[in-house]
């Protein structure tokens, strides 16, 4: 295998790699600003200059007299790279001095501070002081760059990553460089702000604090953020993301590089789509009885389920919308509604399965994780195999939105597409379908069960929602309402939860763990970033307790079990899918 040498570390050559990438594999960091693996190479920041040469067959090394930019030099066999010679070090220090020459010393109010390449590299490679005597050049901040983007002009190092991104990746080309030399700036045309659906990525791309997200601006210093690997669940692309939180509040979401899923970037729908997790409208406690009618608990239900007093008390306080603050300490301490709720649900479902198994329907949501779907389906089918498991509506909005766009906003040809925002706005249709396929043998879609609701209504219906948007129209709700008992699992209050007999709070994806399968059959595990919102708990736990499984939920164990039960999920065998996920079906 041909190899190359980075600071005398020998590593194997891999195709289409440059020296920066090769060095990274060898554990050597070559500083760079303008280079990004997904953008074209301009080699203009001059930060990555290294000494390079070739090792000849006779073992001698011929070094080039000049420094070469590592980002532009392909890592070819027998290349010898030196990144720590005095020459390279002084070049790096000098370049940093130039970069910092007019860079304001406002790290203290800069959102990038803490994850800033200028800071990091200055610390690692730079000098302690600047010799500039003259006042630094100051430029006007540009808050108009985009709906979500502000440009702090004098922090810019002119790496042009953002410009190249809008030209090469989103194709919308809103950003450009204006004028030349030391007075050049990043700019947008008046009336054409950078508001495309991928615009948020330029903030991530900016290696310094020039481009900032207005949504996150001044909210938190980054060193207080704790991150969790997650997967965006707002369309079926399933972008790998990192959720940054502080004190159990999500502060921002960043794309996580995953060549199998989406690449390095994500769309703004997903970037700002987590906010429903902190919505006022969250369901924060289970309840029995219909909120819309102000009923505490229907007498009929109490006779069947005999819920504990705690549940009644709790649901009462919720239904009368008593603010939690006025509740006494003892209420809060002792009124754990969950055990009573689980008992109640178990008896309702058991009764229903005994009395009219064919009249019992469970509607699964494409927002469920594979594990949730599996646990619920498994439980219901074990209660009575005649219970119908059906697929809920899969939201589809418009058409797939592909990038890079042409100059007139036209979509690119399929082979030139670099990023797609899917029309299917649910993360796990494939995964849930695979579970249902196994347990039900065929997929009952929403048209089918809705029509039967009309003709021959089901007696007991369990509906899982968990969609971040209002997802059922009033007509559908009224159809569902014809069921004798309507049990709803959902995150946000909506027309369905108002109509339900039993409401079980679900949690958003930033609060739970699970696996989703994206449009291409790639299964990825996501992890909880924050604690469950007060009063709620992960759906899987509810399903675990419903089914009477003992112990705590452990994702890998359940996944391994799924692999043994459902052949479609054979890839789940070890229970671990790795950071980048595994392709389960194509």
């Amino acid at each position, binding site marked *: 295998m041909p190899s190359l040498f980075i600071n005398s570390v020998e590593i194997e050559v891999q195709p289409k790699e440059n020296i920066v990438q090769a060095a990274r594999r060898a554990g050597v960091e070559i500083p760079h600003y303008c280079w990004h693996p997904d953008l074209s*190479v*301009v*080699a*203009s*920041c*001059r*930060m990555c*200059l290294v000494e390079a040469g070739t090792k000849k067959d006779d073992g001698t090394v011929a070094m*080039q*007299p*000049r*420094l*070469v*930019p590592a980002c*532009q030099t392909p890592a070819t066999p027998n290349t010898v790279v030196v990144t720590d010679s005095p*020459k390279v070090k*002084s*070049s790096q220090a*000098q*370049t940093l001095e*130039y*970069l910092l*020459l*007019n860079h304001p010393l406002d790290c203290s109010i800069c959102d990038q501070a803490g994850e800033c390449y200028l800071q990091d590299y200055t610390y690692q490679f730079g000098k302690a002081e600047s*010799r*500039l*005597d*003259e006042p630094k050049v100051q430029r006007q901040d540009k808050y108009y760059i985009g709906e979500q983007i502000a440009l702090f002009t004098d922090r810019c*190092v*002119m790496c042009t990553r953002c410009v190249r991104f809008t030209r090469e990746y989103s194709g919308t080309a809103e950003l450009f*460089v204006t*004028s*030349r*030399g*030391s*007075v*050049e700036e990043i700019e947008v045309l008046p009336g054409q702000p950078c508001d495309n659906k991928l615009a948020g990525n330029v903030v991530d791309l900016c290696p310094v604090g020039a481009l900032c997200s207005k949504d996150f601006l001044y909210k938190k210093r980054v060193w207080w953020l704790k991150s969790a690997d997650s997967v965006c669940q707002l369309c079926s692309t399933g972008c790998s993301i990192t959720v940054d939180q502080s004190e159990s509040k999500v502060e921002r979401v960043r794309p996580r590089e995953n060549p199998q899923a989406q690449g390095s970037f994500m769309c703004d729908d997903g970037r700002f789509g987590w906010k429903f997790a902190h919505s006022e409208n969250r369901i924060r406690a289970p309840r029995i009885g219909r909120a819309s009618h102000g009923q505490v608990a229907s007498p009929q239900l109490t006779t069947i389920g005999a819920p504990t007093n705690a549940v009644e008390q709790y649901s009462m306080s919720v239904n009368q919308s008593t603010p939690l603050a006025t509740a006494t300490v003892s209420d809060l301490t002792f009124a754990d509604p969950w055990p009573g709720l689980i008992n109640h649900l178990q008896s309702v479902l058991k009764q229903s399965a005994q009395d009219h198994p064919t009249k019992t329907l469970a509607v699964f949501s494409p927002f469920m994780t594979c594990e949730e779907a599996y646990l619920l389906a498994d439980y219901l089918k074990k209660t009575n195999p005649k219970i119908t498991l059906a697929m809920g509506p899969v939201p589809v909005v418009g058409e797939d939105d592909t990038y890079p766009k042409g100059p007139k906003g036209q979509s690119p040809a399929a082979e030139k597409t670099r990023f797609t925002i899917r029309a299917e706005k649910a993360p796990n249709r494939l995964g849930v379908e695979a579970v249902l396929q196994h347990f039900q043998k065929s997929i009952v879609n929403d048209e089918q069960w809705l029509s039967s609701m009309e003709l021959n209504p089901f007696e007991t219906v369990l509906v899982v929602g968990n969609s971040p948007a209002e997802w059922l129209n009033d007509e559908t709700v009224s159809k569902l309402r014809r069921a004798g008992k309507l049990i709803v699992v959902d995150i946000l209050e909506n027309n369905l939860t108002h109509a339900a007999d039993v409401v079980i709070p679900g949690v958003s994806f930033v609060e739970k763990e699970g696996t989703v399968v994206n449009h291409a059959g790639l299964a990825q595990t996501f992890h909880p970033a924050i604690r469950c919102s007060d009063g709620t708990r992960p759906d899987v736990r509810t399903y675990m307790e419903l089914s009477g499984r003992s112990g705590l939920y452990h994702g890998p164990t359940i996944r391994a079990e799924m692999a043994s039960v459902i052949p479609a999920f054979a890839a789940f065998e070890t229970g671990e899918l790795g950071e980048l996920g595994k392709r389960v079906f194509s």
Partner: protein
Amino acid sequence: MNEAFEPVLLRRRGVAGSQTLAYYQQDGGYNGLQKALKMTPAEVIKVVSDSGLRGRGGAGFHTGSKWGFLPKNYEGPIYLCVNGDESEPGTFNNRILIEEDPHQLLEGIAIASYATGASVAYLYLRYEYGQCYRTLEKAIEEMYANNLLGKNILGSNFSLDVYLVRGACAYICGEETGLIESLEGKRAWPRIKPPFPAIEGAFRRPTVVNNIETLACVTHILDKGPEWFMSMGVPKDPNNPRDPGSYGPKLYCVSGHVNNPGLFELPLGITARELIEKHAGGVWKGRKVKAVVPGGISMGFLSADELDTPLDFAGPGKAGCLGLGTAAVIVIDDQTSMVDVLYNNCRFFAHESCGQCTPCREGTAWSSKILRRIRDGHGKMSDLKTLEDISNTIGIMPGTTICGLADGAAWPIKNALKKFRPEFEEYISKGQKTEMREALAAH
């Protein structure tokens, strides 16, 4: 030998009607092209190669070799770009060449295109040369009319189109890849090399970029043969195998503090002193030389002691300058402050830096700021050290930047500080000031 020298390139200067095709053909024009068309392209390249012609644009690269780098049997168009963006302060030879004798250049273009296989030649002319633009437009029209351009030139299989492109006042367009980018309608940010233009140039095709004076020489080499060309200039240094020698006639632009500024065609290798004393009429007002720019301001300075440096491709380098450059000699008399000269220099480069590479963008602006402060009387001795450091880091270390502009900006600083340091020190220590009038101060 110099006294006997008959100008070749400037032979038709000052002759009425010299711009017309009729005059040119009657004066023996297009012989070279006809000769060339009878040879194979490879033979033409060999002839040019044998003549030892080196690019007149500044870098002094061997023209024959440059043409030889093009891929053989390339499918698709190859382009020739003619670099008429002559913006180096002090240089004006192209203007006179075109204004006086456009066909000499166009013949060279045709020969070069034939040799390299280029089907289209773009003549990138700087905006300031409006007269030249119109002269060339007319000349090209005449050529199309006489089957010297267009399809099947002079009955051969060779077809060529020449298009004129006007620049827009940017020095960096004189850099070959900057020129290509500008030609493509983008900002003239020089490209990273490799790939060199010969492999991937204009419109991602193999491209040859040549200077106007170089192409004018090609015309005569083909006409008179390589031996004629090699009979002039400075031969190879036998002790230095890497020295390709400096052959042929060269247009020397002389400006600044001389009695008789102008353009002089002389064989390569004339000394600066001879050029100033004999040809340019000596320093004006009876003053003495303080410094001489050997070839455009990015080359650095020769001090008065170094006037005997031969102005060939190797000479200025031996005297600590960057090179011969465009052979634009600017003479500075002993009453002029080097601080002002250097400030003018640095300001120029700060203004013309394209802003792509960090060291050049920030370094040129910084050095001009420092010199501005020194001129305002607030200089410090440590400024000289800072200036030296800037000059050493933006350009002197090869590879620091994408193109050579930073080197050009660095050498004058380095030279000035090395050769005229006492003057700078005195300027600072005495708190001297150069008055700057308000209108200029703002820029």
